[in-house]
């Protein structure tokens, strides 16, 4: 008997420790911002049976804002493998027995080109990007207004609402190391390993709007410091996590050359190596075949890439609290731009990078109309739809000596769709052996 009690006690300790650890995960910060059971305000009102009134309020912000996690995870999956610097590769002119640089350009930074690096050639690099997200679907993340409605809302008390002014401060730093190897003169294999640090701070000012109980503040209130019937309360939650992100493996082949245009085919495989509950990875595998066409021009080389990404199921797309998984949205990814070799050691790159995310839950600003028919508040809701997201990228690759390249780039939003950072800087180094 004593032994059985000890086993049960040990199990209880382990389970509670596990729950505590789980609660620390960043994916829980928004769902648990107002507490494990959601937003519950104080009440001294008694039901007819004498029991205390349980004043529980619900909102899309808490119930569905896990869409934010999906948007963030989607961003993490969207980071491309930098194109190898085939500006350092040489091709033999067989009629002269002389070597010439395959291209004068060092290629694009955040998009692809068809050229491969060359048989047995290796390039390695590291890129650092820091995202400080500003908006989601055009809504400023520092001012997300959401309305919580009473359980079973109805006139006469249960038409009270709680308005919240929420601020979400999220930043993601990503240090990506990659290696590209030429399996043959026309086939490259690459691996990209990101180290990710995600920091998430969420705060909310909740204010009770006594639409149906203005004469009796004891029905819905936040207990203030003096024990009185307060109307507002601040909630905050923050966390930081770091670790390996989702590893991407790539095969890319230069399949043909049509006049001045080289055509390549490739496939990216994303492994769910990042801890999705800490918003370090997508939590699902992904496969993205793509086709790329690029000019073989030595100085000015336009390029275009189109790929389609299938994703597996992730708990981020489902319900992190319940632990249920759902399909991470599929994406059509496309980019186009040009690399311009200004000098033999400086290449400028300009790109438009886009993607269409299919059937994703998206935030939509709305206006809440209270049951009194007069009062309105700004609110949010979520709708299922497909949407394009467009970004621009401008940067350069500079070759100070040997086969070392210094990369710099800024990625900027061209629209308000999705989770967006106004400007995302990138710096990096590449070296070709």
């Amino acid at each position, binding site marked *: 008997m004593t032994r059985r009690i000890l086993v049960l006690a040990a199990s209880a300790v382990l389970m509670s420790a596990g729950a505590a650890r789980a609660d620390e995960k960043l994916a829980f910060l928004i769902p648990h911002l107002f507490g494990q059971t959601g937003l519950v305000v104080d009440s001294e009102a008694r039901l007819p049976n004498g029991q205390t009134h349980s004043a529980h309020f619900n909102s899309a912000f808490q119930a569905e804002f896990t869409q934010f996690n999906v948007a963030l995870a989607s961003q993490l999956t969207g980071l491309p493998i930098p194109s190898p610097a085939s500006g350092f590769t040489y091709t033999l*002119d067989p009629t002269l027995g002389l*070597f010439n*640089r395959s291209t004068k350009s060092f290629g694009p930074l955040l998009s692809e080109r068809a050229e491969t690096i060359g048989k047995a050639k290796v390039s390695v690099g590291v890129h650092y990007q820091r995202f400080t997200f500003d908006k989601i679907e055009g809504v400023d993340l520092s001012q997300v207004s959401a309305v919580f409605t009473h359980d079973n809302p109805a006139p006469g008390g249960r038409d009270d609402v709680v308005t919240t002014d929420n601020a979400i401060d999220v930043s993601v730093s990503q240090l990506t190391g990659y290696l590209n190897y030429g399996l043959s003169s026309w086939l490259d294999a690459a691996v990209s390993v990101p180290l990710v640090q995600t920091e998430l701070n969420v705060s909310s000012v909740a204010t009770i709007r006594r639409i149906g109980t203005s004469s009796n503040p004891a029905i819905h209130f936040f207990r203030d410091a003096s024990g009185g019937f307060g109307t507002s309360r601040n909630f905050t939650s923050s966390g930081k996590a770091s670790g390996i992100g989702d590893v991407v493996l790539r095969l890319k082949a230069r399949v043909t050359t049509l006049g001045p245009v080289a055509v390549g085919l490739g496939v990216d495989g994303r492994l769910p190596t990042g801890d999705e509950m800490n918003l370090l990875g997508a939590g699902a595998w992904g496969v993205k075949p793509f086709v790329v066409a690029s000019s073989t021009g030595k100085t000015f080389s336009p390029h275009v890439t189109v790929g389609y990404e299938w994703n597996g199921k992730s708990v981020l797309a489902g319900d992190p609290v319940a632990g249920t998984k759902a399909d991470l949205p599929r994406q059509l990814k496309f980019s186009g731009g040009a690399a311009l070799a200004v000098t033999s050691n400086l290449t400028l790159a300009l790109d438009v990078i886009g993607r269409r995310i299919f059937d994703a839950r998206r935030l939509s600003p709305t206006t809440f109309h209270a049951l009194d028919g007069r009062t309105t508040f700004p609110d949010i809701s979520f709708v299922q739809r497909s949407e394009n997201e467009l970004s621009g990228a401008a940067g350069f690759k500079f070759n100070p000596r040997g086969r070392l390249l210094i990369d710099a780039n800024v990625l900027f939003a061209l629209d308000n769709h999705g989770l967006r950072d106004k400007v995302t800087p990138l710096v990096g180094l590449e070296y070709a052996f």
Partner: protein
Amino acid sequence: MVVVRPAAAGYDLAPESPVALPAGDLPTEAAGIRKTLEVYVRAVENKDVQLFRSVKPNLSDEEEKRARAAFKSVQSQVVRISVLSLDVRDGRAVVKVARRDTLNGSIVSSFPQTFQLAKETSGWTIQDIGR
């Protein structure tokens, strides 16, 4: 007609010459042919278009343009040629070589090459280069 195949013993590499001849009996023209290939190597290593033209006088304007572009794109180039066979007949020679180039100090490329040469009053000149 004289055809020379490399002997198993290896190559006769003249001191500091970038062009190694096969060991064994060689045609009398071998020395002249090697000298032309040595000039070719020196022209490539020194990025000297005029020197290149001196051993390949039929260089077209378009080829000269490509040669200049190639020389400009390479920081340094070291060429080593091992002659595999010499086929000399009627004032013409077909020379098959194995070539190993080191670009910019570390990029190494090895490949076979065939030079077709012709004997002129000034000596052997390269008529054609192929794989």
